[in-house]
Structure formats: C-alpha cells, structure tokens
C-alpha cells in the first residue's frame, strides 16, 4: 500500500495550521472503520450538543410546559424579558463585575509571572503557592472565604490593626461584588500566571543581553522586550477572561443568591433564576439566545486570533 502524504511532527500546533491533505485511500475496509469510529461521536454531538442548541433557539419562542406540552407564543418571551427591569440591572451588574475583574485581576498574573521568572531561588515553590488555590473546589472556596470575610474574620482583624471598623464584606452591598472578585482572583490567577510564565520564559535571553549592551535599563527591557513579546498572549487572555466573566454566576449564586438588593444579580444568574426558580424555561432560553448572539461575536474574534498565534 502506498501513501501519498506523510505527516509528522506537528504536535501541539492548532488544527488550522495544518494544511488540508488529500490522501489516496486504497482500502474500502479502512474507510469503513473510519466511518464507524466517527458514528458514535456524531450521534452524541447531535443529541447532546446540537439538539440543545437548536432547541434553545426554538424554545425561546415557546412556552415550555412539561405537563401540558409546549405552546408557541411568538415573541412573548422576548417581550417579557425586555420589560423586566432586572434585565438591565443584570447587564449593568455583569459589566461592573467584568470591569472589576479587569482592574483588580487581569494585570496580577502578568506582574506575578514576570516577577517569579526573575526569582533566583524558590521559583518552584512560588509557582506551586500561586497555583494551589486553583485546585481548591468551588464549594470549599465559598466556605473558606465566607469565614475570611466575616466581620470577626482574619481580614477584618488585619484591617483592625490599622484602625478600620469591621466591615461585612459579603452582605454589605457596597462590597459584595468586589469581595467576590477578590475571592475569584485569589483562586484563579495562578493558572493564568503559569501561562504567562511560559510566555516570559520562552523569550530568548540574548535579546535582553543585546538591549543591555545598547544601554537599555531594566524597565525599558520589560517595556520594549518582555511585554511586546507577550502581546498576543495578553490579548488572547483578555478575550478569554471577557468571555468567561460575562458568563459568571456561580459565586454570586452560592454566596449571595444575587443579593443583597440584587447587586450581585449577573446576567447568567438572572437566566438561571428565570429557568430554575420561576421555572420559566422559555424566557430562560430566550435570555440564552441573546447571550449567544453577543458572545458569539467575541468567540469569532478569539478564533481569528488563535488562528494567527498557534
């Protein structure tokens, strides 16, 4: 049997970089196995992924009732959600949450990665310490940080040393969202830090050497070599963070159930509550369709970038 194309050594590259190969297949038996291997995946993707996605679009025009059956209601679900003032509140809260995660959380892993890459000793320990919170399960995180944020907890004890009166970080509406952002940054920045660290360490050392000989100081080396070299990685992480934080609801649900006074009611939580508290699946799916339209655009941008980078 003769093979017309031989591929090798493209491990770790994206699928898009691989040029399409036309291969002369000489065996019917081989094709039969090939199709046989694809069938289970195709069936499962249709039933458990494409079907829900399409049902989502269809049911946004229906009143979903498991007992009496579904009835077509036209645009009623959309009219209902647009007339609900909580929709705009939840969009506002989500944007506020995304904004906070950017200013509080986004730069932390970049700075930490550059700093840790310069450590001469204990670099491995610093890496492990930074990443360890990431493996803490969500439910443990909530129990842990409820106590950390307690009016008689350790954070208030620390602030008390500076004469600050105890603050109810979680239940005081002014601090609720910020407290969630700090908690999630604590948990998640280590994983982003490891990605950036790999980026920092892949920059050739002799670039710094050359810059130093040309008289560039430490800050200009960071500004003109390190950060530009990581530019595409930083932009990619930014898009991933925006896609991720725009769908956030679990911490808000677990710690506060969207309260106090709906200040932590994010868009995704609003969707979840429509479906699983009010049992209005039609309106819930309509909210999902709207989210899909907005995030789909971001997804395409990210895909375009991935294509350039990998």
């Amino acid at each position, binding site marked *: *049997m003769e093979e017309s194309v031989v591929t090798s050594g493209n491990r770790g590259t994206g699928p898009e970089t691989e040029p399409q190969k036309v291969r002369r297949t000489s065996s019917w038996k081989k094709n039969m196995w*090939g*199709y046989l291997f694809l069938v289970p995946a195709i069936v*499962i993707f249709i039933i458990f992924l494409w079907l829900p996605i399409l049902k989502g679009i269809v049911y946004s025009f229906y009143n979903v009732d498991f007992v009496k059956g579904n009835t077509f209601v036209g645009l009623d679900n959309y009219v209902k959600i647009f007339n609900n003032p909580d929709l705009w509140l939840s969009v506002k809260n989500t944007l506020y949450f995304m904004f906070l995660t950017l200013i509080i959380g986004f730069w932390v892993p970049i700075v930490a990665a550059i700093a840790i890459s310069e450590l001469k000793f204990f670099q491995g320990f610093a890496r492990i310490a930074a990443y360890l919170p990431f493996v*803490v399960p969500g439910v443990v995180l909530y129990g842990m940080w409820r106590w950390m944020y307690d009016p008689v907890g*350790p954070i208030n004890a620390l602030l008390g040393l500076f004469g600050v009166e105890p603050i109810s970080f979680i239940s005081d509406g002014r601090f609720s969202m910020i407290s969630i952002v700090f908690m999630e940054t604590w948990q998640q920045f280590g994983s982003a830090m490891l990605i950036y660290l790999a980026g920092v360490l892949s920059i050739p050392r002799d670039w710094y050497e050359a810059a130093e000989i040309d008289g560039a100081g*430490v800050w200009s080396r960071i500004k003109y070599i390190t950060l530009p070299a990581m530019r595409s990685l930083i932009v990619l992480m930014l898009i991933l963070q925006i896609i991720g934080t725009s769908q956030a609801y679990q911490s808000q649900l*677990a710690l506060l159930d969207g309260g106090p006074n709906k200040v932590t009611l994010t868009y995704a939580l609003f969707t979840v509550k429509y479906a699983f508290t009010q049992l209005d699946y039609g309106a819930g799916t309509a909210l999902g369709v709207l989210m899909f339209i907005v995030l*789909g655009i971001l997804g395409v941008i990210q895909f375009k970038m991935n294509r350039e980078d990998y």
Partner: protein
Amino acid sequence: MERGILSPADLRKPGNKIVYGIMVLGIAIMAVTMLYPILMTMFNGLKSNPEINTFPPKFFPTTWHWENFSKGWNYIALPVFLKNTVFIFLGNLFMTILVLGLAAFSISRIRVPYSRLVYFFILLTLFIPATSYMIPNFVNLKQLGLLNSYWAFWLPAGANAYYFLLMKNFFDGIHPEIFEAARIDGASELTSYLKIAVPLSVPIFATLSIFIFSTAWNDWFWPSLVMHTEDKYTLATAIYKYVINARSLDSSIKFSILFMVMVPPIFVFLGFQKFIVRSVSLTAVKG
C-alpha cells in the same frame, strides 16, 4: 538559563537591589496570601468551635480536636457522595477515550472522505458559550428521561469538542509509519487504535483525566440540577446543600469537612504537577 531580564551587573546597582528586594517581598506576601486560607481551613477543622469564632483569629489551635474529622465524616454520607463522584469521573473518562478518542483517531489518522466536514461539525460547538445553552440542555435531558441518572453525565461526556481537539492534535504528532506497519501486518484500525494509539497517548490521557477529575470533583451547580435525589448527589453538590448552606452546623465540623474535600485535589496536583503545567498551557488554546 544564565540570566533573565536582570543581569548580574544590574543587581550590583543599589537602586535595582532595593526594587528586587521589594519584588521578592511582594512574592513572599503573595505566597502567604495564597497559603493562609488553605492552612486556616485545615487548622480551623482542628479547633474547638468557640475558638474559631474568637477575634482576632488564632492560627494554630490551642487544643487539637482530631475528633472533628470523624464527626465530619459521619455528619453526611460522604462515602455515598464520594462513590457517585468517582462513578461520574470514571464513566466520563471512559466515554471520552472511547467516543472522542475513536473520532479523533479517525480524523487524524484514517482520514476518510468528508472527514473535514465532521471535523468542523464538532469544532463549531467550541464557539457557542456553554452558559447560553445550559437551560435547553437541561430541558433536553429531561425530555430524554435522563434526569437523576448517571447517563446524564456519561453520554454528554462524549460531546466535548475541546477534549476531542486535544486528542486529535496529539494523534497528529504520532509518526504515521507505525500505523502503516501495523496495517501491512494485517491489524485492523480498531487494533491500531487500542494497541498502538492508546498506549502512545498516555500523556494526553493523563492530562484529560486531570481535567475530567477536576470537573467531576468541583462541579456543584449542574449536578444539583440533574440529580435530584440525595443518593445520587455528587460530593460537591452535597457539600453545597448540606455544609455550605447549613444553619446549625458547628464551624469546626464544617471546616473539617471542607478540608477533607480539598485534600484529594491538592494531592492530585502535587503528584501530577508535570501534567498539570502542560494542561494549563493547553487551556490558553481553549475556546
């Protein structure tokens, strides 16, 4: 690696020395901030209940209450929830390797006509944010009559485009000559997959196992919707319902349970660091 951004000469300048010192101090503070809540969860689980609520909080327990752990273990049916979680983990792993692995192998190594079409059919789902079809997904499972059954986790585990992509990329890197040789020797494609591709792909399966383990271990919201009787709850769901939201549970018992739930993932992390660092860099490519 001889030097980083800083060269040895830089560090001899006093100004840089101070900045470097501040940086090291900053990293030390970060490390303490990272480890403190984790250690406190452990030590709080060993304190007496009144001691946890003293202000300011103490780090070490004054008396060590080891019995908190046996009380915590018996407070809810942890072994049952643990069994459910392990069930879901193993089933999901099996489905991933069987369904997604075979499809990835076919697209990467067999390349039947129109396989590109199937490839895009799978990959397209990466661009659809999971939260946007969470509710129809639930409705779909309900209509299929899969609620409150492990199949509601096992079957959809075969519909993960991201894991598919990871395996496909890995199979792309295996030298095709090996499969040619097997083919000439009369091995069927299934034998090629099971006897050659699977043993050569242990690193990617290890990475996937870690992903699947952490999802099974950490997910609390979705299982709380899908499983609605107590005997089917996963560990995380049970902790959320009975420990986090408990009103009359002693804090010391609560922390001992939280600590027990946190220990396995920490050990998995420390034991499989190599694979985890790899898996983290893979998430950057994730959609």
